């Protein structure tokens, strides 16, 4: 058995060391990564993948700890991927989400992995999708992905999760804020955390008002829940809604099919884009034409889009 096959076998058996190693291989994009993902892929699709996003400080990690406990009480196993931002200046990262979940470290039914975005945009890391697949293939019933909390454009999570939870906390803005495009549009469930605070009710009402102005997501009306993550208040109700959404997807195969289709298309496109770009640029460099082309763009003799069209045409001719 090759090293990769051994790790895959371990993952399918739920071996924690193999899971950890598999995620590292994927993160570092080592030569074995592609083979590993290819072997794991057929074993995915069983877990309920939940994405949790929202501004930093809203209480995501604290809530996840309570959510995981509740799932465990119900006999489910859970994988958690907690993403934090990589510094664009130093390349380093402080991965501190785990602090709020540390008591779960020694629960055998829970696997927690911290990931740095490594400068991928949109709130997750490039490897997050495949890391979630590893946890899925390892047999986790639920996989929760916590995005790096930064703002309104963290919508990459839709490519990873089936159910998206958007978390708010009181005092982060008014009704207008609630209408803005981006993460407010992707939510299957809204949660207003720190519901013990004064304006929690108003925040929930603002979100509900915004929802009344928008279209339903394929027949699913996103509920607006209130939680107090520190005490666990509201968590059982949240789990119920998560289960409800999962059932909705099962009972609406067309909706589920659309989701799967969108994901497959996005995955394929991204994989193709990455490889084609690299192949074309590498060829240019090999032919010694890369710097010349950059110079032409700088001197405005051509523009990037026209240059790209020429490159692609040439590639298709030679393919």
């Amino acid at each position, binding site marked *: 058995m090759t090293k990769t096959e051994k790790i895959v076998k371990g993952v399918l058996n739920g071996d924690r060391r193999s899971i950890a190693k598999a995620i590292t291989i994927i993160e570092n994009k*080592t030569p074995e990564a592609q083979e590993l993902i290819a072997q794991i892929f057929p074993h995915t699709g069983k877990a309920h993948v939940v994405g949790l996003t929202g501004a930093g400080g809203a209480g995501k990690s604290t809530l996840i700890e309570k959510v995981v406990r509740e799932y465990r009480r119900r006999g489910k196993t859970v994988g958690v991927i907690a993403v934090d931002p990589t*510094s664009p200046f130093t390349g380093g990262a402080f991965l501190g989400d*785990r602090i709020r979940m540390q008591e779960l470290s020694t629960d055998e039914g829970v696997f927690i992995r911290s990931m740095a975005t490594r400068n991928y945009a949109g709130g997750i890391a490039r490897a997050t999708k495949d890391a979630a697949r590893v946890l899925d293939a390892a047999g986790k019933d639920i996989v929760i992905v916590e995005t790096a909390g930064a703002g309104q454009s963290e919508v990459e999570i839709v490519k990873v999760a089936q159910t998206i939870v958007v978390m708010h906390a009181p005092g982060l803005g008014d009704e207008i804020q609630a209408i803005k495009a981006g993460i407010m549009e992707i939510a299957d469930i809204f949660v207003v955390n720190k519901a013990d605070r004064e304006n929690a009710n108003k925040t929930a009402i603002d979100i509900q008002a915004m929802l009344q102005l928008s279209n339903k997501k394929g027949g699913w009306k996103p509920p607006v829940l209130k939680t107090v993550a520190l005490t666990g208040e509201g968590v059982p109700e949240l789990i119920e809604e998560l289960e409800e959404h999962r059932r909705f997807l099962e009972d609406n195969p067309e909706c589920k099919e659309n989701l799967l289709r969108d994901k497959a298309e996005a995955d394929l496109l991204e994989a193709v884009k990455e490889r084609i770009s690299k192949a074309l640029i590498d060829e240019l460099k090999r032919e010694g034409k890369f710097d010349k082309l950059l110079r032409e763009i700088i001197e405005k003799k051509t523009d990037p889009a026209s240059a790209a069209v020429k490159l692609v045409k040439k590639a298709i001719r030679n393919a």
Partner: protein
Amino acid sequence: MQDARKIRVLIAKPGLDSHDRGAKVVARALRDAGMEVIYTGLRQTPEQIAETALQEDVDVIGLSILSGAHKTIFPRIMELLKKQGLTDVMVFAGGIIPEEDVSEMKKLGIKEIFGPGTTTEEIIQYVMHNLPKRD
């Protein structure tokens, strides 16, 4: 298409220390040196530390302890790391560890002890130059 290898470091606080200023200073410094630093927070048991190191697949573990319990706790941690198969992880320690205990700690497999007064630059350089060869 391989990305540059990122060094993943676990900064852990075993025992009952009540503050973690030093640990956080080291964590920040390593982050600014380009590493991915996972911090456990206070009051970690040896079991929690070993399990975290396993799940996070770290290259390096930095143990920070101020309470004087290192002679009890460190052996337990090193034993658990061995049990988990994490013998290829580089472990260093810091905080309040008396000079006379240093060689005993090193015999456990802890590669270096950084006492009070160590500069963050020293720790960064040590980590960079003593990275374990991992599978």
